[in-house]
């Protein structure tokens, strides 16, 4: 897990640092740290870890063992709100043709019954094409309101892309919860 955190921190871009410094000046270090911990910023596909470790104990029981990747009950879709890219010409981990992965994401922690492990899943939106409209899912395991932005899914996570049009959502494993 430490490696994952290192990679994620490395993904932080300068703009985010500037924003953090500005915020720190305005409202103090504690709040700035709160922002960093709850907001995913960066140019890479991986998020800064916003999940709360205290939630890990309740890690997902969810999903249906026989669900396909085009069904909302597929295990790694436990906190996915949007259209499945696997139904829109992409796959579980790849954006459809012409769509770009979002620069920022929210995450879920989902249980894979096959190996008994809880995985941190990055829900990247795919951006720049019109909304797909197929296989709409709305699962919310450990999803929280926007004041915990990194685990909030009622917002367009293409917001930091140009163009920021929302197309569909992929589910990319970024690490194992509880490891490290």
């Amino acid at each position, binding site marked *: 897990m430490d490696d994952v955190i290192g990679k994620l921190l490395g993904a932080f871009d300068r703009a985010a640092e500037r924003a953090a410094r500005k915020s720190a000046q305005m409202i103090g270090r504690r709040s700035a740290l709160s922002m960093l911990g709850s907001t995913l*910023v960066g140019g890479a596909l991986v998020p800064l870890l916003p999940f709360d470790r205290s939630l890990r104990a309740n890690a997902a029981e969810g999903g249906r063992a026989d669900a396909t990747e085009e069904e909302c009950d597929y295990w790694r879709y436990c906190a996915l709100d949007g259209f499945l890219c696997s139904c829109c010409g992409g796959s579980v981990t790849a954006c459809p043709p012409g769509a770009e992965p979002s620069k920022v994401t929210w995450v879920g922690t989902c249980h894979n019954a096959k190996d008994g492990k809880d995985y941190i899943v990055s829900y990247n939106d795919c951006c720049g094409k019109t909304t797909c409209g197929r296989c709409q899912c709305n699962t*919310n395991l450990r999803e929280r309101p926007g*004041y915990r932005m990194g685990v909030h899914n009622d917002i367009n996570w293409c917001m930091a892309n140009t163009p920021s049009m929302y197309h569909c959502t992929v589910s990319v494993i970024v690490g194992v919860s509880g490891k490290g």
Partner: protein
Amino acid sequence: MMRSAIMLAGLLAAQACAAQELAPEKIGKTVLGDFERVYVADVVLPHMVDGRVYVLDVDLNLKGMMESGFAGMMLAAPQRGQVYVPTSFYERLTRGARTDVVQVFDAHTLTVTDEIPIAAARAQALTYRNLFQASSDGTTLFIQDATPATSIDVLDVASRRRFEVQNPGCYGIYPSLTNPLRFSTLCGGGTVGSYTINEAHDGAARKTSAKLFDATNDPWFTHAEHDVDSYLFVSYKGTIARVSLEDETAKLLDSADVAAGAPGWAPGGFQPFAYDPKSGVAYVLMHGDAAEGSHKNPSAEIWSYDVKGKKLLARSPAAGLTSITISPSDPSALFAINPVESKIQRFAVDPQTRRVAKTKEIKLGESAALIEVSK
């Protein structure tokens, strides 16, 4: 002879028809009168560039609609005869430069009469009431931004001047009910940040409350209702918290547990409760088998809860609802979004028992999340 008779009969019949023929008509235009409106904001998820706000009367007749672009919000300003709809447009519909504006609709013609440019940082989010609000005197608009770092734009409607305050780790806007220069926000640490706008109207000082809620284990929904002098928030597990946002620092005044004595039941949805300040009764969308992750589940029942008396008054079957509101002029009328059946529904409250029963509905909407009733 016979042939001539038939021809004559045909001629007579044609003349009779001509007598009944409809006159040419003029195309009309409809202008809405002054009646109480039900506004339903729909982000139409399958085709998001085409959002709309439906306008209905309280009998749930569709009277018209307003365009809300990509992930637009809405706020009625009945004292001005206007409706504000902030949204985003792209130069080439789905691509090209992004332009964000507050569209000002005339509430009677439903046409855009003005546009106020705003930063292209507006939270492109599902339509939650508290992402776009006005000050208590209606002169200032508050717009939640997310890039995803969060801030709030403060816009003076008359001068169009605006400034931005950071609200990192926080989300949602809750204007003071009495002080037009004050607004608050909910924060991920379980606190409430309260801002007071300075005299120059170009900045705001912030004070943070004590920890008022557990954002990890029992977070507050961002939807809030207000009483005469305080706000009400509801938590995932069913605690209703009464909070004063009138002073420099927010204060918790009281709390009650809606789901006490009913294990497995919890509030759910996007606009999970409505409140009648006159009677002090909250109407809460409740679902059974509640568990982590069920907080947006549609309702199975509406619970009528006396917030001041801390007493459950009635449980009424009402399946499939995720948003509910109440008429400010007639507290016996509730309006709700049923996304399961793609319907808008009206419910009547029995003033004695507080039981709720469905009385009307209209098939409408694709991804409606916010419903408001306003003059």
